[in-house]
Structures are given as C-alpha cells and as structure tokens.
C-alpha cells in the first residue's frame, strides 16, 4: 500500500493476507471498533447453525434481516406513522392519543397560497421561502460540487508527487461535524473576521457577508462544498483510475487531440460515478440543516432559511411547539425525497443497461 491507487479499484482485496505488514497495524487500529463484531460473529456460530437446522436454509434470509428490520420498524417506520398521525391532528399535546383530529387542516394551512410561485403570497410564507431557498441552494451546490470535485479529481489523477497527501487534505473536512464547520467559517466571515482583515489590509472595505442575501447564500453554498467535496472527489477519482489505460494509449497513437480525449473517453466513462455524485449531493443538499443554520441563522431575513430548518423550528423553537404543522411539512418533504429516490433508482437502472 505504498500508494493507495496501486490496488485495482472496485475490486476487494481478499482478506488481510495481501496487505503488507507495514500497513497491518493500521488495519488493526481500524478493526478496534470491529472487534466486538468479530467476537459476536464467532459466538453466534453454533446458535445460528441450530437455527438453520430448525427452520431450514431457505428461511435463513429472514433471520439475517430480522435484527435490522426490528430497528427499522421501531425507529423509522413507526415514527413515520406517528408523523402521519401528527399531521392530521392539532394542539400542543405530545401524545397522539391526546391530540384532537383536525383532518387536512394542517395541509390546507401549509398550501394556503395566493400564488405558488410567490412565497410571500402564502399564509405560511416561511415554509415556501424554505422550499424555494432549498431549491436554489441545491441547484448551486450540486453544480459547484460536481465541477470542483471533477477538477480536483482530474488534477489528483495526474502523476504528481505527494498525491496521497493532497488527497488526504481535500478529504479532511469531511470528517468535521457540520456544527464545527459552520462555526469555523462564521468566525472567519464575521465583520471583524479573518477575511475582512485580509480585505482591509488590501485596501478594501469590510463586507458584511451575512447582511446581504446573495453573499449569505454564496457562503452557504461555498461552505457546504468546502466540507463535502473531498468525499465526492474520491468517488470520481476512483472512477478515473478505473478507466483502462489502453484506451488512452490507443487514442495517443491516433494523435487524438487532448480535449477530444477528455470529451470522448474520460467524461463518458466517468458518467456512472458522476451520477452517484449528483444524486448523493442532491439528497444531502435537500437535507441540509445545521451547517447553514449555524452559519447564517437562516438570514438575512429568510434568505437562507432551509425547509428542514423550518420544520425543526416549527416543532421545537416556537413557543407553541406546533408538532402538527411540522409533521405535515415533513410528510410533504418526505414525499419529495421519495420521488428523488425513485429518480435515482431509474438513473441507476439506465446506467446498468
């Protein structure tokens, strides 16, 4: 593992036997969290053999699925069900049995708009502003993310010294918590922050980044790209390295211009990984909350208020914790996310053909 890329991407290394001794301690350190897992696996062996004898090999998949789906049921499906109940009830009570049924009132309130194209004409304008802000944010964030990660992956794919180091540098922010990321940048971007110090030392005027709606949105996108681009770069880099080099050699022989190689070979072959990047960043973008919330507080005005922040604040921050309305909004968001998932599935299917 002198250089990580020497291992063919997309193919697993069979066990630890092939890993050079120098890297083994690293694997061991990583395996520390896996140690209890390994132990559990071994301990469960006789038991599972007995289970298999009892129910037959054909029913074993249910055994494998069981624990995970118990948790899914309790902490994902049941809450989604409770949320549906919340969304058709009203009042401040927490337990569904104590909440009066109000029918579609919450949804009607949410969708009470003069025109759906103008958030300020809606009764619950914050929700719609959140929807439109999220749309703008996602659009710019995904676009920038794809371009920046592609550029970085292409550069990292060149024969440069210290590639492992640079790759690590770009990946490092991925490990930071969203709150920390936002805190760091807020500290840099405030009126008396580092960036304004740099601007004034170059003779410029201080810029109040969080007072101007366009700047605030710009920095929200920037910080989000800063924090996550490392992850997407690695996905694209893996794709680039999987492109067979004989393709390039053949093109070289034909004296094909370089831009044509990029356009006709690299990008098309990278397309599957691009889809992954686009879809994942799209989903993450729609879910964005704490990063932007800590950075801009949703402001100025409501210029960077995201729809998830709206839901969180409606359920928690307001004095009347309006669980019903928040639930209705989250059902709407859930449906949109589900549609996006289906779109992803369709895209993946297309790719496989």
């Amino acid at each position, binding site marked *: 593992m002198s250089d990580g890329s020497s291992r063919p*991407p997309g*193919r*697993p290394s069979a066990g*630890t036997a092939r890993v050079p001794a120098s890297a083994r301690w690293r694997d061991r350190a*990583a395996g520390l969290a*896996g140690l209890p897992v390994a132990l559990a696996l071994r301990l469960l062996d006789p038991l*599972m*053999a007995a289970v298999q004898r009892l129910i037959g090999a054909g029913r*074993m*998949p*249910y*055994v*494998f*699925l069981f*624990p*995970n*789906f118990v*948790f*899914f049921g*309790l*902490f994902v*499906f*049941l809450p989604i069900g*409770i*949320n549906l109940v919340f969304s058709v009830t009203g009042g401040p009570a927490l337990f569904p049995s104590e909440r009066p049924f109000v029918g579609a009132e919450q949804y009607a309130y949410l969708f009470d708009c003069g025109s759906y194209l103008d958030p300020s004409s809606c009764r619950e304008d914050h929700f719609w502003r959140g929807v439109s802000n999220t749309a703008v944010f996602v659009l710019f964030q995904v676009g920038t993310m794809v371009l920046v990660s592609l*550029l*970085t992956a292409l550069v990292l*794919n*060149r*024969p440069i010294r210290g590639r492992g180091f640079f790759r*690590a540098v770009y990946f*490092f*922010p991925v*490990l*930071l918590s969203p*709150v*920390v990321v936002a805190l*760091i940048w807020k500290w*840099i971007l405030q009126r008396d922050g580092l960036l*304004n110090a740099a601007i*004034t030392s170059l003779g410029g005027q201080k810029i109040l980044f969080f007072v101007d709606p366009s700047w605030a949105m710009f920095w929200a996108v920037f910080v989000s790209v800063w924090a996550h681009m490392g992850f997407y770069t*690695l*996905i694209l880099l*893996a*794709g680039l390295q999987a*492109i067979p080099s004989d393709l390039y050699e053949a093109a070289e022989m034909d004296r094909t211009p*370089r*831009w044509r*190689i990029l356009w006709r070979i690299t990008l098309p072959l990278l397309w*599957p*990984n691009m889809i*992954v990047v686009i879809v*994942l960043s799209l*989903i993450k973008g729609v*879910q964005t909350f*704490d990063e932007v919330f800590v950075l801009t507080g949703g402001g100025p005005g409501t210029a960077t208020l995201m729809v*998830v922040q709206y839901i*969180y604040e409606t359920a928690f921050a307001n004095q009347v914790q309006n669980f019903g309305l928040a639930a209705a909004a989250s059902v709407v968001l859930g449906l949109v996310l*589900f549609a*996006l998932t289906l779109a992803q599935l369709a895209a993946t299917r297309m790719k496989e053909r």
Partner: protein
Amino acid sequence: MAALARLLGARRDGPGRPLHWTDIASYAYLAFGVVLMFGPVLWLVFSSFKTQSALLEFPPSLMPMAQVEVTVAGQPNPLPLFRATLPDGSVKELAQIRRVGLVAQMVDPAEPDKTYRVAIDKREPVRKVALATENYTEPLRQFAFLRFLSNSLFVTVVATAITLLINSMAAYGLAVYEFRGKTAATLAVIGTLMIPITIVLVPVYLVVTELGLVNSLWAVILPGAATPTGVFLLRQYMLTLPRDLIEAARMDKASEWQIYWRIVMPLTLPALAVLAIFSIMWRWNEFLWPLAVLTKTEVYTLQIGLAAFQGELQTQWHYLLAMTVVTLAPVALVFVFLQRFITTGIGSTGMK
C-alpha cells in the same frame, strides 16, 4: 483549449519527463487547496488560545497575544505596558497606572517617581505571544470531562459495532438470497435512505420514551443503529462478489451463517471500513438527538457537555472554541493514522 485539456488530461506521461506548465498549474491548484482546506482549521486552533478580549480584536492577530505587564516599584499590582508617543515626539515604553476619560496616567518603569499624562490615542499596547491555556483548563476543571469522554467513546464504539453487525447481516440477506418479500424489503431500505432524523425527531422521541430509554446511552445508540445507508452501501458491494465462492462453500457443508461471516464479511472489508468510519464520525459529532434524550450530567456525551457554554444571552466564545478543538482532536488523530485506509476504502467501494 488543448492546454486546458492537457491540464485536465489523464496521466499518460511517464515519470522523469520535464515539467510542463500544466504541472505547475496543478501544483499551484493543490497548494491553494491545502491553504483553503487546512487554513480555517488552523485558524480555529490558534484562536482557541486567545483570551476573551483578544478574540474580539480587529484586525485579528495570527498568534495569540497578550499585553505585557510589568511590576513597578511603589505600585501594588502589575501594570500594563504601553508604547507611548510623548508630546515632544519621542516614543517611550510606559506602564499605565490608571486611565481617566481620555487621558492615561503613566509611569516609566525605570524611573518609578516620574509620571506622565498621555492621551489614550497616543499609546499602543506592548504585546507578546501568550497562550490562554485557561480556555482549556477552566472548562475541563468545571465539567466532568472524563465522564463525557467515556460516554462518547462508549456510544461511538458500541453503536458502530451494532451498526456493522446488523447492517451487514441485512445486506447479506438482501444481496445473496431470493425470498418472498425481498423486493418490499429492498424498497423499504431505499425509500428511507433519505429521511433526515431531524424531521422525525418528535416521533422518535415518543418511541424512545415508551421504551423507557430516556436518559440512557442506549437512547442515543439504538435509534440510529440500523442505517438504510449502511445496508444499501454494503448490499451494493456484496452484489459484486463472485457467486461461485458461496456455492463452493455450500458444497463444503458450511452453514449459511458461516458463509456470511467466514467468506462474505472478509471480502466486504473495504465497504465495512467506509461504513465504520462514517458511523464513528457521525456518532462522535452527533448533537441534536442526544440533546433531546439526554438530560442528566452522568450520561452526557462530549458534544452535549461542552455545549453548556452557550447561554441564553451570551456565548462564551473562548471556551466554545477551545472545547471545539478538544472534540476535534480525536477526529484529527483518527485521520492522521487512518487517512490512507479511509481514502482508499472509499475509492474502492466505488459507491456503485
């Protein structure tokens, strides 16, 4: 255009060739990247060593600085040292005894009997580099830091272990077998892939309450243990494994469980590593959910315990920044030791 394409071109040139300008551009881009990616974090670390008032300065100094204080004969307390411009234009280092309105009364430490009156805009503090380590020691003294740390470690390790176990079992079931309800189960996983926990916080809280888990670390561990993302990632990876291996093992009378843990699990290691890393990071940094279910000091995780510096009306920035660095340190350590493992792991899963 050709040059741009060359800049973005794939590696084809062997080592030892002369440096082309595109190489220089690449290195410049990467160097800029280093500054942009590491700079902000370093800035946070430097800032965390500044005193409360130094944090507010403009322009901010790079290094943490503090004003020099000197002891002057005849004065009970050490006095702050300034560089003062005197009416005759000479510059002298003077200690300030007191300030009244716009005028400071100052004294020369060398001649303690002689006092000067200096307008306050005619003096500049004399400063030296000084680390405000009390930003770290004070909160650590005030709070049950070790307890928070051990809670965080417990949550992170146990939750990751459970996640790895049950997610890989489910993924194995979905990837390897044909059975009734498989499509439904797969759809259920994929359909919930994107529901952020933020929007179902209240219902999950209700469930946890009914299970009697509030104020136990299990309330933090269990709800997120079965991640759809994890199942999805592992399943996708397992789908690429050669089927013959499994068939051969069946011939050898291995039980299904043995096939799972002796054959499939080792082959899935890269994907498991990715999942483990993301689970560790997520658990270590989790904030909103623990804040909702943990209300007792003895079960606080680090992130909750250290957030107590955010009051209603003021945030104690100097403590907040220092404690952010404290929670960051383990992440940085993990990264330094495992970075190659992490980066190649993600690359090789390919997220197909």
